[in-house]
């Protein structure tokens, strides 16, 4: 799966930390939120495996843009937040 710039995506509303030990690079505040792909940053070993010294597959990493007011229900129109997110957390819309 490759996500082109401009594509709308939803971050999975998943909470693996409720199921056991894990290492996640997806902050709470974007889970379940809708954003836009800015660009593909490259492929990097999946940190969720790397952290436990398991074989870690190269995983696409994207820069994803979120509208600041829609994330928090406050803030200035036009402001945004950009985050690095791995492909398996993103659902294309």
């Amino acid at each position, binding site marked *: 799966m490759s996500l082109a710039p401009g594509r709308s995506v939803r971050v999975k509303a998943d909470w693996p930390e409720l199921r056991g030990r894990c290492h996640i690079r997806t902050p709470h505040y974007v889970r379940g939120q809708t954003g836009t792909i800015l660009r593909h*940053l490259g492929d990097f070993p999946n940190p969720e495996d790397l952290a436990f010294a398991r074989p870690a597959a190269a995983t696409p*990493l994207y820069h994803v843009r979120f509208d600041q007011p829609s994330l928090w229900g406050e803030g200035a129109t*036009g402001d945004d937040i950009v985050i690095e997110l791995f492909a398996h957390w993103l659902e294309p819309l």
Partner: protein
Amino acid sequence: MTIATLDHDTLLQALRRVLAEKDIAQPDEIAERIRITDAGTPAQGARMVARAWCDPAFRTLMLTDGARAAALLDIPMRGAPPLGVLENTADLHHLVVCTLCSCYPRAVLGYPPFWFKSAAYRARAVRDPRGLLTEFGTTLPAATALRVVDSTADYRWMVLPQRPHGTEGWSEAALARLVRAGDMIGVTIPALA
């Protein structure tokens, strides 16, 4: 005596000995890594910013591949994560934070300021970034959008600030002296003293 009561130097020496015996890291490799770490200071990032202000080709390279641009200025980048550079313009200001931990472009900025790792900075940079900037004495023009960059994974990010007005004709070295760590995080803006 337990590991919790041993003094730090004894622990460090024991760790170095075990690393060498198991051939994980030899003393010369550790010395090299310490040398690289010590070479990282905000003055390195400031040199890059000043060069980008004076040399459009360097600026283009810096925005495309920050690590290559840093290496061109003899900044040690071996083993460093990819370096992304965020260009501030009249329309868009960038603010860098790592909400999950303390990711920081150490090769070019050195150790982070103490507040960069604080829970307060990490929470407020994403939740109330304009309020946070005000507390750093930074007021953005109303027409300038603010983009918070949360450093959550493999990249490290630095800001390329706008060149201050009134610095026309300045030497690169004089320009570099204007640029502080906060300007390259995005909490402040370079200004003439």
